[in-house]
Structures are given as structure tokens and as C-alpha cells.
């Protein structure tokens, strides 16, 4: 059965204007549709526009032209408050540099994603602990990021990304700062959790082994989607 497209991109462009007046086309007039539940991987060299595309999909940035629709929400003209709601409810981010809050414990980092919601304190704690347990960090919940290995920090970031049970998971070079074995572990966790929850994943990466987890692979170069397989 054909699944609905949860992501629909039409003629999308994102142009940055530099102080010198020069314009950089980070995303250049692309079209893309992603069915619900698909694990999509975008590969490409540094500066090809992958992260910009993820930021546009996550409502962190706004397109210069074109349209991005995610789970029925048109992100192109979204107001700040609606963009916040969208990020809180619909997407989970995992970054290359983990982006954990250094002064918060693993548990608090996950709970931070739930802090702006109306979920009760007890449920927040329960859900955060359960997520950390699911990424194998049950014994490390009260550790600060600095007390965790790189792989463990990325697992905390994954638990945080899943905290609000988002429909879409956006992975920005999630294995970029990890060795191959740890990176593979991380991808397995993301793959397993997203599949079991029916979540759509868009990952951008350089790592070759990501091919083993992906349903679909796209190459990006100079802001354009060059090859689709």
C-alpha cells in the first residue's frame, strides 16, 4: 500500500546573502517527497547544503523561495510561535556535535525537551528514564555530558530527540564525531527506534555504513539533489 508523503518539498531554495553582497545558494530549487516511515539518507560533501535542508525541514530556518510541507504543516510562512510548536511536537534533532547542555545531567538533558510541554513532572521523569534505558544508559542518567563518552553523549541526544515522540527524526551527521563501531551502534539505535515507532527519518551523513540502515539514498551537491536511488 502506498504510504502518504509526510514531507513534500516544492521548488525549495535557500539563499544566504553575505555581508560582501555575494549570494550563496545553499539549497537550489529542489523538489522532494518522503513517504511516512521512510529512512532517507542524504549524502554529500561538506557545503553541499545538507544541513541547510535539514534546518528547513525542522523549522529552524525559513526558505527564500518554494514550499516545505511537513505532516500537513506548511513551514514556509510559519510564525515564530507556530515554528516552536512544530519543533516541539513534530521533529526531533540529533546533531553531529551532540549539542547537550553541559550543566545538565543526561536525565535533565532529555527532560529539557519535555520542559516546555504540559506533561506532568512524574511522566516527564518516567519517559526520560525509559528513553535513556532504551539507548543503554540506565546506569548513567545522573552523569553530566563531560562524564560520558562521545558515543554515550550521542545516545543521550538520541533519547532527547525521541522525547516528544516526534513524527520525524532529523539526524545531522550523527556519527560524524564517532568511531565506526560506535557510529554503527548509534545508527542501529536510531533505525530500530524509528522503525518500531513508525517515525520518518532524514539523515545527512558522510558515513558509508549508513547505507546499511537506509531505505533510500540521495546525493546532494551544490544545493541540488543530484542522484536519487
Amino acid at each position, binding site marked *: 500500500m502506498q504510504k502518504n508523503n509526510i514531507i513534500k518539498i516544492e521548488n525549495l531554495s535557500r539563499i544566504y546573502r553575505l555581508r560582501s553582497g555575494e549570494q550563496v545558494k545553499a539549497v537550489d530549487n529542489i523538489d522532494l517527497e518522503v513517504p511516512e516511515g521512510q529512512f532517507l539518507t542524504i549524502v554529500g560533501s561538506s557545503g553541499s547544503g545538507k544541513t541547510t535542508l535539514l*534546518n528547513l525541514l*525542522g523549522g*529552524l*530556518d525559513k526558505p527564500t523561495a518554494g514550499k516545505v510541507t511537513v505532516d500537513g504543516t506548511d513551514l514556509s510562512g510559519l510564525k*515564530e*510561535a507556530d515554528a*516552536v*510548536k512544530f*519543533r*516541539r*511536537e513534530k521533529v526531533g*534533532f540529533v*546533531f553531529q556535535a551532540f*549539542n*547537550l*547542555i*553541559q*550543566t*545538565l545531567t543526561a536525565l*535533565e538533558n532529555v*527532560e*529539557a*525537551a519535555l*520542559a*516546555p*510541554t504540559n506533561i506532568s*513532572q512524574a511522566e*516527564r521523569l518516567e519517559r526520560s528514564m525509559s528513553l535513556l534505558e532504551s539507548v543503554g544508559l540506565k546506569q548513567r542518567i545522573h552523569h553530566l555530558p563531560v562524564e560520558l563518552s562521545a558515543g554515550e553523549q550521542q545516545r543521550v541526544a538520541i533519547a*532527547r530527540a525521541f522525547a*516528544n515522540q516526534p513524527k520525524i527524526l532529523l539526524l545531522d551527521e550523527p556519527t560524524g564525531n564517532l568511531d565506526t563501531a560506535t557510529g554503527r551502534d548509534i545508527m542501529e539505535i536510531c533505525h530500530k527506534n524509528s522503525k518500531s515507532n513508525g517515525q520518518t527519518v532524514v539523515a545527512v551523513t558522510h558515513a558509508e555504513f549508513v547505507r546499511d540502515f537506509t531505505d533510500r539514498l540521495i546525493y546532494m551537491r551544490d544545493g541540488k539533489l543530484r542522484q536519487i536511488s
Partner: protein
Amino acid sequence: MHMVPYSYAWREMRRRKHRTIINIIGYVIIVATLVAIVTTARGWEATTAQPLKQIGTDLIFLYSAPVVPSGSGCYIVNHLFSFPFEQSKVHDIESFEGVERAVPILMHRMGAIVLVGIDPSETETNAVLPENVLDGRFLASEDKNVALVDLEYAQLNNLTLGSTVGYMKGRFEVVGLVDVDAGNILKSHIYVNLPVGQRTIPDNNTGLVNVALLSVNDPREIEEISNALTEQFTGSTVIAAKDLAAKTSNALAIGEETAWNISIALAVVTVLFTVRSQIAAVSERKREIGIFKAIGWSRSNVVSQIFIESAFQGIIGGLVGCVIGVGFAWFFLSGISGGTFVDPVILVIGFAAAVASGMLAGAYPAWKAAKLSPTEALRAI
């Protein structure tokens, strides 16, 4: 109650210890200054006003220059010359706006002994009041050659009830022993009826007094009434409790209004300094703010976070400042009074001022943080 913002705020403060401590010190200075100076000012006024209050007096009226050619140059103990004036003038003073009561007094000093002539029918404002009688009775209007004697003076001179005490040409039976803590300016030894006193001292003093003790309707108007009386009665001197204090001690004397002005000036400086400090803190945390925005924190969540941190600093500074302020007030007042009364309202105002200053200092940095674009913030190193 979401615990993450609070634990995050607390740890951020600990992470930036030096900046946090400097900010808190600023709030401590505001509150400690406010509490210490205002409490000291109030304690000072209360302490110095107490002796006069005990005899129902707010102001002492006298002439420090001759008013009438006749009469003796009477002398008040606190090195202030006071010259006789018509007793009827006391009625004029009493009818003055704001004056509740004006009581005539005649004081005369011979050597180290001070004789005071009083109107015993005045039992609320007077050089001695019925409640000052420790043994015996108070004076009555019809009394002639009887006197009240200061207890200390009586003990030094072996005077008891029924003894005779002399002053110049007068001889008086001691009918009461009194203890009046009226401060140096009104410290007296022998109290007699006013007409008796007028006859006892040299020259013709009939109908003359040299002091009027005044009570006012509203103590907040003391200074205003004092100025108006001085203006109305040329050559007169009106002494209030705080003037008395300035003459009797070298300790710190500062008005409450000045105390408030100093504290407000300090608060402004501290807020400006803390704003700068908090802006720097926000700049250092650009990336973290980006992370929070990426995981769904709204502008108001970010603003609240910065506010919480600033308020925490204000709360700590406020509490420590209150303690230090009370300590300083106690230190300043310990030399001049038996105790330090700390008005809880001042503590509340001081504490609230610190928290408000903290939040004010956090407002602009919070607004700057809220405005940050998440992608720009995430790119920050």
C-alpha cells in the same frame, strides 16, 4: 513546576562562579546599604527621640537671645542659654497650627543644680510626669513649699520623703522622688510649682518662663512646624529630637531620605553593571540557547530562563544583604542605644529591591537571547 529551568539556572550560576559572585555582591551592597542606613537612621531618631517622648515632648521652644529686658538669664544645662519670655506667649505657641500642646517651664541652674518650675496640671507633656514618681506623690496645683527631687540627687544628698531640700532662698519639703530620663538638655534635680519657682530664683520673674515643651499632632510634621515657629517667633530656637542627638553624640547621624537616595543610586549602578554581565553570559551561551530553541523552547521559555537566573542572584543577594545590613545597623547603633529595631518592612523592601533589580538586569539580556535565530545560535562556538 518544571525542575529543569531551575536546576539549569542554578548550575549555570555555579559554572560562572566569578560573574555570579560579582553580581550577587552588587545586590548585597544595595540591600545591605538600604537596610543598614535606613535602620540606623530610624534607630538613631528613635533612640534620640526616646527621652523627649518619655515626657510627651516633640519640640523644645526657647529664646537663645534676650526677649525682655527684665528677668534673669536662665540657663539650660546643655550649654544653651535660654532667656525668659512672657508665659502668655506659650498660649500663642499652643494655638499655632500643628501644635497639640505647649507647656510652660522655668528652668534655672545654680552651680550644678537645676531647679524646674512646672505646671502640675499638665500631665501628658511636662518636665516631669506623674508616672516618673517612684516614691511619694506628684505635685498639686495648690502646693507651695514642696518639691519633687530626682532620685539620684536625693541618694547623693541623703534626701528622703519629708526631708527638706534647699535652692537659693527657697526651702522645700520633699514629697516625691522621681526618675526622669529626659536626656542631658532637660536633666533637672528639683521640681516645684511654676509660681514657686518664679519666686525662688533671683530678680522678678513673675509671669516669665524660659522654656516651652511642645507636642505636635503629627510627628511627620515636626520639621515643618519647627521651621514655622522659628520664623514666627523671631529670635526663638526650636529643638527637635534629632537636633538634640546631633548635639549629644558624635555617632553617625543620617536622614532616612538620604539613606533611600544612596540606596537607589547604588541600585542603578548595580543594575547597569549586572546588565552588562548578563549580556556577556548570554553571548557565551549562544549555542545552548540555540539548542533549547531547536528542541522546542519558545522565546518566553528562554526569557524565563534568563530571568530565573537573574532572580536567583537577586534572591541570594537580597538575603545576604538583609543579614549584613542588620549586622551593620546593629554595629552602628550599639554605641548609642540598647537595641536595634529592624523594621520588617525595610527587610521586605530591600529583598524585593534586590529581586527586582535582578530581574531588571536580566530583562535586556533575556530579550537579546530570545531574539537569537536558532540556526545562527547553533553555529556559535
